[in-house]
């Protein structure tokens, strides 16, 4: 398992960077926010990303993808993180498609994955029910009824819920709240009767929805995987999501750091460049070191996803290392970035604040640093 990008991955990274720099600067996100865009993402930009094959990056060739691995998807996420691109890449590709790929039957994969690659299908993962991510704290119920199921419950923090065609809903077919057993995953049509979706305007100018399911009837074919037995595969899906988000955070924190470094080299105070103050230098050097560690944690976690020798327990550990570390350092770097910019960093006109806002949402998504440190300790038996 190498921690250095392969030549192909490096080429992909360079081209993704060039594409993002040219087509998706932070001003795109700002525009979506200021215009209160109905979709919350730039559809033209997304079409270009589809043409570049980004939606099929980690999807097997058998289902219309390009089988470039999570390493490939990771560098795309990293580069899109640099300019805070808001797109269906996370909700649909990273989370939704992975759920279908990990849990679905061959028929389900054959039906839906090509639609993700082509952009016809937008997905959203509905799991959290409380303000804190606790993957087994599922009260949403799915009760067998005839051939199908009836779903009831509420979901929160459903990323891109308002634009999804289909929702990947985690529900309980058995067991008590917090039980690992009894979890099932359903693919629910967003337009189905009883589904109500309320878009939330988030601090990072992205979108997540509150979802309520009121006697929603689905067929047996809506079930992804075996009934009541989703825990293991679902955990892998979440770990894929955590690693992908960590990759995105890596891009954002590198960019925020570089912007700040540039500022330290330009801004004069008291007759000298502020970057010559040792107090700031040491803080910058410490950030640099932490970012290097983050880079390694992300590269290793992505490589592990593509490594057939790594089992679920390995992946879990890599995912929690990456998500815990990145969440912590993203907070540090974005706070320091604003502080080192001084007053100008506090203005909405300047981009750096966007990085701080995104860092906090990404840090909380799929488990914050506290959650993943706790999980890491449990995984390691202490």
């Amino acid at each position: 398992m190498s921690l250095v990008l392969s030549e192909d991955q490096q080429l992909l990274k360079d081209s993704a960077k060039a594409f993002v720099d040219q087509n998706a600067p932070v001003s795109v996100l700002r525009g979506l926010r200021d215009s209160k865009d109905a979709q919350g993402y730039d559809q033209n930009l997304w079409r270009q990303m589809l043409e570049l094959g980004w939606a099929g990056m980690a999807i097997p060739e058998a289902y219309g993808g390009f089988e470039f691995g999570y390493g490939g998807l990771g560098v795309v996420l990293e580069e899109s993180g640099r300019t805070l691109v808001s797109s269906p890449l996370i909700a649909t590709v990273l989370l939704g498609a992975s759920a279908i790929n990990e849990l679905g039957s061959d028929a389900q994969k054959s039906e839906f994955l090509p639609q993700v690659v082509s952009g016809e299908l937008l997905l959203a993962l509905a799991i959290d029910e409380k303000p804190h991510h606790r993957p087994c704290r599922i009260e949403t119920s799915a009760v067998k009824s005839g051939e199908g199921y009836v779903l009831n419950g509420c979901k929160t923090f459903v990323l891109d819920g308002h634009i999804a065609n289909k929702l990947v809903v985690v529900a309980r077919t058995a067991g008590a709240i917090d039980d690992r057993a009894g979890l099932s995953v359903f693919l629910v049509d967003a337009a189905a009767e009883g589904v109500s979706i309320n878009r939330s305007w988030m601090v990072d100018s992205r979108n997540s929805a509150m979802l309520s399911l009121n006697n929603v009837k689905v067929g047996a074919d809506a079930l992804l995987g075996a009934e009541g037995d989703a825990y293991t595969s679902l955990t892998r899906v979440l770990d894929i999501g955590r690693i992908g988000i960590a990759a995105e955070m890596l891009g954002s924190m590198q960019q925020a750091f570089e912007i700040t470094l540039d500022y330290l080299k330009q801004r004069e105070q008291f007759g000298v460049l502020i970057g010559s103050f040792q107090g700031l230098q040491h803080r910058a050097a410490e950030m640099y070191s932490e970012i290097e560690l983050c880079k390694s944690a992300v590269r290793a976690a992505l490589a592990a996803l593509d490594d057939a020798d790594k089992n679920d327990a390995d992946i879990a550990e890599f995912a929690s290392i990456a998500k815990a570390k990145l969440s912590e350092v993203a907070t540090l770097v974005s706070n320091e970035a604003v502080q080192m910019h001084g007053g100008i960093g506090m203005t909405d006109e300047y981009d750096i604040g966007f990085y701080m806002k995104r860092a906090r949402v990404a840090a909380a998504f799929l488990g914050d640093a506290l959650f993943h440190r706790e999980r890491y300790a449990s995984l390691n038996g202490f």
Partner: protein
Amino acid sequence: MQAIAHLEDFRQETRAWLEANCPASMRTPMVDAEVVWGGRNPTFVNPESKLWLERMAEKGWTTPTWPAEYGGGGLSKDESMVLAQEMSRINARPPLNSFGISMLGPVLLESGTHEQKSEHIPKIVRGEIRWCQGYSEPGSGSDLASLNTKAVLDGDDYVINGSKVWTSYADKADWIFCLVRTDSDVPKHAGISFILFDMDTPGVTTKPIQLISGMSPFCETFFDDARAKAANLVGGLNNGWAIAKRLLQHERTMISGFGLAGSQGDRGGTTSTMDSVERAAMHYRGDTDKISDPGLRDEIAKFKIDSAAFALTSQRSTEESKQGQGPNATSSMLKNYGCELNKRRYELLLSSLGSQALGWEGEGFASDEIAVTREWLRSKANSIEGGTSEVQLNVIAKRVLGLPDMLSLVQK
């Protein structure tokens, strides 16, 4: 004994006067919308606010200790304390919020000419003119003295060109007290003057600043050949830096109060869940006996202990300065620590609320949740405004600890 008897008389008179003159609604806790800022076009959401201001201003009690000669209350320190106690006794609202009172007035009384005081002080007392402060400039930051706004004498006027930033309520103020460069050929601190002029002066424009937390009272202010009467230069030509420093002392003391909120578990009489980080943490996790996330619990305990120790330090500092004991160079320390505590408080609130602290607007989030998010963002400026943490730490290192200044080796 005579003095005490006099004070007792004064207390009785004051109590009677307040009883008779303080309108009923002015004895209820202040609400943001009803704060009175005065000015040429004042807003009185509550008509009793107007009455209350007029009555207080007539007695000069908007500025109790200022000289009666200029419209102030002319009270002694002891009398003004009695007045404050009696107002507090009936929960009387302050009749007027004003940078003229809190910032400009004191230095004007100290350094202004008789003519300047006669012209400006009575209007401050009566809330007739609303003031704003023209200090920072886009390029100056922590290095305030590097300011570039130029004032050039032309007949009886100074002609002013340049711009200011972080001017609170500049778009609503009538006059500005402003630092300008009147000599560019001397060391930077020696070429600055302090001047007053009307914001209606042709060539003055303002533009509000949006912060990362949303709208703000801050503005950018531009001067394009704006003319100010030379007679309104305060404290003498090129003597502005001394006056500026006096003013900054007031501002810093004001800001260090931030950190106290955390230890008091209370912000101005409201009782929201958000007032107590630990309650918020439990509420948003559905915990009853203790915070179920042990890492967060430990961090909150650490925060609360630091807040308690900080509150005790503020108290000790006050006691010590009363006794004239110990160095009172603690203001930089209190400012810096207080701001960092406030920032920690909001970081912990954010962790406590989880995704409910990540909303911006619209449905799905309660107003106090949105407020936490916005205030978290706003709190990041605590360690920037009124002197950055870095500047405060420099001040502690040099003035309190006596460590040598490398910058002085660099600067010629």
